[in-house]
């Protein structure tokens, strides 16, 4: 079954409207919670008048920060603890200031507007420049200034190598802020009954959420049940510990009734954390052939008004991946995480790695432009060869697994018909009536399969492993409990394919469950493209162990040595004796008959496996984008988008393709459409989907997808992960194409998003 494009088990429910999302869940006596969000970007709170709100019909109460003062702070980096609601000051527009609970969402929304908050304005620092200015006011009280973290990632600089390089150039690249904007916004329903609480939440790591809730409330973990039901997309933005995860349980405890919070889209756009928002200062040294000799990078990341413990450190991952697919002998990197009066930033699809891929792929194109060489040729002279794998990067512990980067590029160039495109580009440039043509390449590698434990526990997780429990039912069908918590990835399908192969059962005979801490053994969660590389291998391991148990019982049944059995059809057979065979169902049934088994045999066929990856995995590939640019308006049309991906073993080509499509869509969106922006006063300029340019189906091209399958030696399945590859590869493929279309005019860079106006101005200023 591995390698089959079987339809997804999930879709029957989801496509017929029978999915169960947090907002679908009803409990008796349910109350609704809404935030009063800050309207100011930076201000002291001088008063909160709740009197009008509390008298409105249906309103149960209004609470402010002081009402939760006794609750331990939200999990964070020691010294940077955050509370649940803004206390004496607000740090960004949208920050929760008070919380209203009412009998229905309408009453709650009306009451939230009736709460009167008075502010004393403070200077607003909505940009990195303002936050770093000498006269800047510290935003986040525990810190004396606005630099929350200053991190030299590499011990040594590369000044000598840059000096020695025959050529060098500098660039300043901007990776703008974007919003995850999942279809389903953040939602929590908490029901505190007796001495424990059940929390349904749109989260990516229910066991971690359980641990954090248990810690805050001083509960033993068995008394906290966290359920991630169907989750309508997450993209990393549902991995942060939002205050509602704790406020809803606390209010349920106080009120003795279940409390539900579901963000409206407008709230989501300012409340749920954003992603990216890096400024990158780069200097690169290279020779006349385009061989890159040294890279020096300084990253400044905008972490918003209140530091998120993950967001603050994401440029570490950016730094580790700066070398991309290239043999760059010396890399120096450092970063600063800077507070501004904006919504906090944290994980978003790729979380730190797409920023690296964008950087190095733009740099390679700039080197090509500088030397007057073809960007494909500059890539070829720098790519790490397949014979060099596994490849030790300049960063300790960052070792790329098996892949053939040059083969991916060759396949891409062939599929693009690259030389013909270059000829057509020349023809178009000479024809003033024709749209300009540009071709952009992105040879990329990213980091996936998070763990292992020593790395992943730094992000606050119990481990970097993943778990699977596999139980054969008496009729030979299978139930698998997996520790991940998918939100669109298709784990019911892919895990069942793995089980079907390892256990020799039909795909249809396997059900995969997840997302409920009362049902599933300890698990970690779904993020960092770890579903297949980590959880997939845990499922495989459990299946191997159960298959081994089954073999022993079959051997007993057939009165043979287990080593003499071979797998046939749906059971076992004594090697060379076709008559001596037994179907799996009979083996399972026998496993429940103690009187017919050898003394001491454990009943049932079941195993719980924990798979700890030895290393990260490194999905890679080569993407190419062809754009047309309207000369008179600057509008960019993506006319072709070609993907070559190597995610190792492909479990399900259809769902893998779906991941590539979605990731590329988000990457194109970043390149051409999306930006979370604020005015100088920190007011959001993109707080609804009318203003935030989330592209639709008609704005995106057809995707041409191809796969190279180079098995990773780092795990038994040979998989690498695919969830973040598209979003990692696409932005620079598109931007490189846009700049390529305009290069003859002297254009060297266009900042994302490459809006028609920006492109038009770039052309206008160049000519």
């Amino acid at each position: 079954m591995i390698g089959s494009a079987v339809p997804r088990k999930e879709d029957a429910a989801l496509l017929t409207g029978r999915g169960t999302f947090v907002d679908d869940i009803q409990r008796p006596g349910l109350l609704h919670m809404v935030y009063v969000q800050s309207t100011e970007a930076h201000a002291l709170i001088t008063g909160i008048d709740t009197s009008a709100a509390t008298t409105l019909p249906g309103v149960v109460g209004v609470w402010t920060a002081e009402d939760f003062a006794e609750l331990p702070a939200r999990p964070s980096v020691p010294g940077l603890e955050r509370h649940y609601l803004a206390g004496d000051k607000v740090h960004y527009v949208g920050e929760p200031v008070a919380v209203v609970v009412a009998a229905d969402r309408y009453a709650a929304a009306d009451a939230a507007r009736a709460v009167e908050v008075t502010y004393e304005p403070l200077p607003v620092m909505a940009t990195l420049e303002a936050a770093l200015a000498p006269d800047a006011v510290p935003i986040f009280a525990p810190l004396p200034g606005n630099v929350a973290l200053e991190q030299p990632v590499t011990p040594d600089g590369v000044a000598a190598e840059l000096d020695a390089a025959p050529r060098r150039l500098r660039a300043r690249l901007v990776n703008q802020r974007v919003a995850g904007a999942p279809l389903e916004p953040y939602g929590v329903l908490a029901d505190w009954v007796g001495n424990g609480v059940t929390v349904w939440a749109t989260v990516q790591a229910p066991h971690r959420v359980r641990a954090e809730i248990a810690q805050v409330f001083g509960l033993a973990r068995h008394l906290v049940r966290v359920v991630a039901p169907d989750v309508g997309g997450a993209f990393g933005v549902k991995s942060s510990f939002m205050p509602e995860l704790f406020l809803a349980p606390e209010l349920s405890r106080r009120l003795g009734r279940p409390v539900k919070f579901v963000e409206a889209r407008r709230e989501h756009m300012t409340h749920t954390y954003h992603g990216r928002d890096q400024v990158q200062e780069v200097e690169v040294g290279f020779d006349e052939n385009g061989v890159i000799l040294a890279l020096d990078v300084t990253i400044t990341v905008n972490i918003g008004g209140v530091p998120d413990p993950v967001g603050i450190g994401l440029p570490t991952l950016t730094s580790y991946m700066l070398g991309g697919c290239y043999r760059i002998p010396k890399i120096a990197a450092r970063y600063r995480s800077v507070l501004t009066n904006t919504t906090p930033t944290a994980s978003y699809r790729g979380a730190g790695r797409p920023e690296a891929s964008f950087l190095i792929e733009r740099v390679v194109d700039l080197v090509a432009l500088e030397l007057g060489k073809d960007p494909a040729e500059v890539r070829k002279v720098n790519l790490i060869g397949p014979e060099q794998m596994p490849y030790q990067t300049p960063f300790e512990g960052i070792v790329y697994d098996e892949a053939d980067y040059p083969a991916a590029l060759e396949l891409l160039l062939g599929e693009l018909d690259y030389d013909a495109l270059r000829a057509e580009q020349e023809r178009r440039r000479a024809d003033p009536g024709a749209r300009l043509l540009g071709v952009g390449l992105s040879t990329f590698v990213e980091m996936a399969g998070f763990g292992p434990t020593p790395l992943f526990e730094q992000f606050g997780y119990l481990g970097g492993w993943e778990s699977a429990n596999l139980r054969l039912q008496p009729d030979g069908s299978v139930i698998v409990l997996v520790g991940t918590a998918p939100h669109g990835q298709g784990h019911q399908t892919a895990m069942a394919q793995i089980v079907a192969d390892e256990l020799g059962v039909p795909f249809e005979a396997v059900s995969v469950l997840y997302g409920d801490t009362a049902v599933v053994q300890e698990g970690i969660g779904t993020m960092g493209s770890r579903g297949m590389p980590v959880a997939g291998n845990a499922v495989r391991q459990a299946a191997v162990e159960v298959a081994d148990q089954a073999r022993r019982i079959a051997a007993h049944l057939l009165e043979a040595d287990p080593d003499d059995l071979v797998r046939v059809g749906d059971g076992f057979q004594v090697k060379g004796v076709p008559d001596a065979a037994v179907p799996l169902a009979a083996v399972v049934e026998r496993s429940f008959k103690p009187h017919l088994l050898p003394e001491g045999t454990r009943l049932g066929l079941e195993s719980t496996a924990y798979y700890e990856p030895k290393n990260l995995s490194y999905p890679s590939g080569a993407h190419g984008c062809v754009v047309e640019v309207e000369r008179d308006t600057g509008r960019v049309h993506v006319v072709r988008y070609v993907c070559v991906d190597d995610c190792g073993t492909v479990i399900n080509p259809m769902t893998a393709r779906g991941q590539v499509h979605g990731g590329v869509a988000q990457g194109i969106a970043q390149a051409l459409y999306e930006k979370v922006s604020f005015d100088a006063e920190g007011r959001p300029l993109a707080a609804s989907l009318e203003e935030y340019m989330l592209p639709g189906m008609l704005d995106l091209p057809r995707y041409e997808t191809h796969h190279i399958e180079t098995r990773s030696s780092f795990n038994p399945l040979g998989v690498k992960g695919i969830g973040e590859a598209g979003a990692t590869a696409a932005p620079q493929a598109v931007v490189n194409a846009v700049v390529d279309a305009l290069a003859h005019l002297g254009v060297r860079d266009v900042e994302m998003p490459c809006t028609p106006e920006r492109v038009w101005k770039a052309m206008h200023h160049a000519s």
Partner: protein
Amino acid sequence: MIPAGFSYVRAGSVEQALAELARHGVDVRLLAGGHSLLPAMKLRRVEPGVLVDIGRLRELAYVRLDGDRVVVGPLTTHRTLERDPLVAEHVPLLAAAARRIGDPQVRNRGTIGGSLAHADPAADLAAAVLALDGVLVARGPSGVRDIPAAEFFTGVRTSALAADELLVEIRLRAATGLGYAFEKFSRRALDWAVVGVAAQARPEGRTAVALIGMGPTPLRAGAVEEALAAGVPAAEASALAARGCAPADNAVASAAYRAHLAEVLVGRALAAL
């Protein structure tokens, strides 16, 4: 996205709708297709106390020919305008504009009267109605009055309709067999126009050109029209597209870029006539 509280009345007749308007004054909004009003209410940009639903007044949904005029009932949906044979024959510009509004779901619900009364400066149909020398017929307590389209739009989402008036008909000058063009530039396929142009050829070079997204209201490009009437070549006339316009300068587009787009789009529209 939770609207403020409101009460709801379903009008059974035009007379009842007018009576409700008279009773509730400025606190009332008429609900037709709801595709502009309901999102605005959910974003709490408007908070009417009373919604009077006129969506079932089928007598307000029609397309007829009346001499040299095409008369359209205000509850006619965008989808109908796209497909109606009379529209296609006599005012195809209206169909071209309707076709560029949102997606099929929106076009099946949205109405021409609702769109015009909402008076968004970037509404596609407003450009077409302006270029077709539209006259909007308003009915109030004191009777019926005609408002030329050029006088109908008074500001950003404000119109010459009085609080107690109902838009009951749109009258357009037939343009049978004459050239027309609708050009729309939007960020996303299903977006509002950043800038849009409706152009309608008339005999004796009297081409009508209307712009959206170029100021607080949809408007006629007077300088372009005069130049064309004076025999100036289209390529030169289109350079006058932004003359007299005060387009918004905001996160969607700068005023300078909008002005440039107006010139480009007018050029394209005139070339397509």
